[in-house]
């Protein structure tokens, strides 16, 4: 007996939905398993008094966005334009 095409599609959709569901389970499991690592990172931040993530190391105002002011990107010389690529993805520091 051949399988009906509707059954094949339903089975494929069900399998994909189960796989998406599995990502939720895997996420929850990993969040719990990786908590000690996160706490170690947080402890290092507290111990060294760090303020920023080491995501963009190309310029001082992208390495430490929380410590820079809004003008930092344009300070190199009069009429200087911001030219580092990560300045395009990282918004300037929020003022209070």
């Amino acid at each position, binding site marked *: 007996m051949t399988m009906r095409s509707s059954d094949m599609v339903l089975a494929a959709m069900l399998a994909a939905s189960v*796989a998406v569901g599995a*990502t939720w389970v895997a996420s929850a499991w990993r969040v719990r398993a990786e908590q000690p690592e996160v706490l170690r990172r947080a402890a290092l*931040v507290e111990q060294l008094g760090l303020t920023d993530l*080491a995501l963009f190391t190309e310029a001082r105002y992208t390495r430490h966005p929380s410590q820079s002011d809004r003008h930092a990107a344009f300070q190199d010389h009069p009429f200087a334009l911001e030219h580092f690529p990560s300045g395009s993805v990282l918004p300037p520091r929020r003022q209070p």
Partner: protein
Amino acid sequence: MSGWFSRQRSLLDFAVSSLARRKGKTLGLLAVYGLIVFVLASAMLFSHALRHEAKQVLAGTPEVLVQRLIAGRHDLIPDTHLAAIRAIRGVKSAQGRLWGYLFDPAAAANYTLMVPPADAPAAGQAVIGAGVAAVRDAAIGDVMSFRAHDGALVSFTIQAIIEPESALVSADLFLVAEADYRRLFGIPDGRFTDIVVTVRNPREVRTVAEKIDAALPDTRIILRDEIRRTYESVFDWREGMVLLLLSGAVLAFFIFAWEKASGLSAEERREIGILKAVGWETADVIALKSLEGLVVSLAAFLLGYLLAWLHVFQWGAPLFEPVLKGWSVLYPDFRLTPHVDELQVATLFFFTVFPYTLANVVPIWRAATVDPDQVMR
């Protein structure tokens, strides 16, 4: 109920065979649709997980930081400011920090040079981040030398390497002793990069900050709350070039999908005409075409989301790396903890699956309500 179910199965059979007749078109649409969902979901999962990580990791960042500004630029802060801050009521402690940037010509990379507030390495020794060790291929016991402000060489023996699991906050760190830091940059005693202040009562942080601001007008105060806000807006969807580029692709897709869904081909019109001629009702035709749209959009969402999850949390988001890296030589090797925002996923589901399915229905309804004979001509 079983009658309704068997009817839906038959409709689905018909919808699948109808899609299979236009195999190339359907697969092409599925691929483009899935790709759009993949890119949107990747950006969404990545930025949410990173924001969550920043929130957790930076919870213990200094409560209040005081910088000195001269002519709008950050300047070294003298220890007289330190004494003035300690005299303010409500201040528990104030300590000068020493940190800065060092460009290493050998690796063409920027390091963050820092003197740890406690347990600093001995003079001539250094503790380095995993990223520094990687770009310089350095191991414990190796010697790294840099030119000091006066041109003299200052050498450091690597005492330890910070664990790679902390690379997200420590990849570019170069921890040295206070004497070495001052020697390297020629910073005299009694001067600091900035000052860390702790406050006795956490509810008085703002008041203390205002007092510092009033007592020392040449300073700028950064609160922990502001640092948190900075990272809350990291890769904010409204900002940045990525979204700008992405919005072009998304708009192009919506035009494509709308065109595909709302403009019926002559073949489709004929199909609807034949179905009506053999006795199908308008509601059946609409249900059939809605099912076709649902199959395509649901499959695209499920595939796109699955691939995005794997891309971000399993493979380390390699497609974002060139964007985030920019011109940086040193980039942290990190794996994000999969914090997923259910509401964001639901929003993505709603905005990717429903519009396409609905866009399918309107023209079908229009075609299906016309006389079959007229439609087939």
